[in-house]
């Protein structure tokens, strides 16, 4: 079976062809979104969820730790951003810093608890903590606004030294989020191919063996969890800007399940780029199906079932297979394991 380790990496390069393609897509999107029947705002949401999904896959795909309560950190980031604007100052960087820091601290705290656990128990504890965050968000009305959410979150302007850019426009915010996503992709790409990233993959392949090799496995698990929570926090901060509100629903367990679903369908288990395909497919399919039929979930569910049955390696896996077939490259590089 295919794994993350056997799709060729070009791990020593800063900018690979794939990253370049991604950049082109990312930065030209507003020019063609309308032409393909989409709209600016959905592009913005996709970019935000990509940040979330890419960070999530560091934990899920690379480290093999199954978190089913990751929405909590997205929510924490969103609330932190909003509260910073309301209570401290209207500031873009301050808000985003607060979002990342708050989600990171929450992730660190939960991670400390989780990191000695494995498999199913690990997954279950993530759910339990996720539920607690979710309940708290609904219960602490005075802070979070309860089920109505934290409303009227401003979109602070982007202050560059020479000029400032108003982000109230969805396209402007899109570009801002896209730049952040791109920087984070570069960062993640380095990270997963660094010695640290290799240890995470070793943990996924065999936690016992990794610990026998002398690594303090739990520290790495903790780090992976915290980093992915910080990614979620960044996404949450941007999400609360996009929606100009923060809602508890993103923290609910079925919403957390969605990110798992997206990452898997996209092929996050076999490719760095898996989450990208998954998030785009989810949003586009939901938007198109949702506009056509009220029973869109039925079709979506069916598609999902068939995908798991027949293409479990996800879209990235399919693309990889097609690629190999067309380029007629011998599949020898497959065997390389980190």
């Amino acid at each position, binding site marked *: 079976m295919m794994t993350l380790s056997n799709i060729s990496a070009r791990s020593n390069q800063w900018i690979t062809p794939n990253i370049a393609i991604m950049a082109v897509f990312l930065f030209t999107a507003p020019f063609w979104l309308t032409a393909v029947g989409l709209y600016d705002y959905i592009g913005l949401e996709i970019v935000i969820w990509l940040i979330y999904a890419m960070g999530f896959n560091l934990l899920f795909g690379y480290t093999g730790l199954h978190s089913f309560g990751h929405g909590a950190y997205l929510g924490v980031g969103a609330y932190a951003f909003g509260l910073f604007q309301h209570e401290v100052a209207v500031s873009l960087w301050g808000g985003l810093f607060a979002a990342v820091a708050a989600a990171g601290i929450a992730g660190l705290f939960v991670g400390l608890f989780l990191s000695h*656990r494995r498999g*199913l*128990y690990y997954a279950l504890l993530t*759910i339990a903590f996720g539920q607690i965050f979710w*309940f708290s968000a609904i*219960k602490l009305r005075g802070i979070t606004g309860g089920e109505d959410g934290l409303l009227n979150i401003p979109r602070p302007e982007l202050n560059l030294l020479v000029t400032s850019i108003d982000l109230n426009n969805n396209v402007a915010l899109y570009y801002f989020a896209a730049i952040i996503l791109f920087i984070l992709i570069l960062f993640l790409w380095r990270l997963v191919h660094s010695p640290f990233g290799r240890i995470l993959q070793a943990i996924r392949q065999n936690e016992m063996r990794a610990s026998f090799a002398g690594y303090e496995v739990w520290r790495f698990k903790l780090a992976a969890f915290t980093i992915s929570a910080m990614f979620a926090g960044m996404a949450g901060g941007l999400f609360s800007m996009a929606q100009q509100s923060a809602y508890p629903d993103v923290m609910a367990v079925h919403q957390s399940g969605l990110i798992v679903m997206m990452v898997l369908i996209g092929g996050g288990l076999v490719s760095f780029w898996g989450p990208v395909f998954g998030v785009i497919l989810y949003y586009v399919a939901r938007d198109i199906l949702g506009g056509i039929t009220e029973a869109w*979930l039925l079709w979506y569910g069916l598609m999902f079932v068939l995908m798991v049955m027949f293409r479990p390696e996800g879209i990235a896996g399919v693309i990889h297979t097609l690629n190999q077939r067309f380029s007629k490259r011998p599949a020898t590089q497959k065997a390389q394991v980190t």
Partner: protein
Amino acid sequence: MTQLVPHIFNGLTLGLLFALIALGFMLIVGVMEVINLAHGSLFALGAYFALTIIGVDPIADTGLGQWWLSLPLVSRYVVALFVAPVVTGLIGMLLELCLRRTYGRAPLYGLLLTFGAGIVIEETIRLTWGTGEQNLTIPDAINGATFFIGSIFSKYKFFAAGFSILAIIGVWLFLEKTPYGAIIKAGAHDSEMVRALGYDLSKLRLLVFGFGASLAGLAGIVMVPIWGLRPHVGIDVVIPAFLIIALGGVGSFGGAVIAAILVGLTVGITGAYASAWSMMSMYILLIIVLGFRSRGLFGRASALEN
């Protein structure tokens, strides 16, 4: 003034209901190491099948339908109680056939496939039976209130709790006292051996999954007179079931039953003294228990840990 005794008693009843909800899920996880996220949808499906069997709406105007409706509710209810879970079990078997493609891969794929199947089942329910709230009528004998230890309790709750005890005993007998149980348990851990002994493992899996699904359906039929019946009624089932398994320890049948009772007591007593925290209490319980015992109360090593 809050009197504790009725609340403890109520908590025990709740615990038995939690056990009933978790039973089918527990069987499939414990024996097949598949996390069946369609459990909640099968739960709802069972209740809807029972609804149709009792009311026979599609054929209510035919001679056969008229004859059936002329029977007393008790007999129709009893028939539904047996037939609806069997039909749900057949749907479960269908799901197991799809699930076969994921065997040998990470447990995650089974979980995902059943997640998708759960959505499909729920949406099909919506299309077939409509989105509205429906009512599963129960015979008068088990309806109404009864007076006990100074408080009013629902007769139906007692019936449901009693039913849960029967179901628990039934599953225990199946696992411990039938040859199937032994083979299945061996199969979960050593499929080579089972094959060597000449048993058809795939048939066994089909059977177990079907059994687990029908237990889900049965729980649905028993629970909806308390919860009400709507297409998404099953969403409140999977998480508690999940939690109970983790608390009791994967693979431990007794552990899960004890965990269910513990959850019931926790929720019941929190409900009496700090009702706003009653939902959260079970998660806190899980975190505390797993904080001290990494495999739950009675867990043993399982492939799901990898």
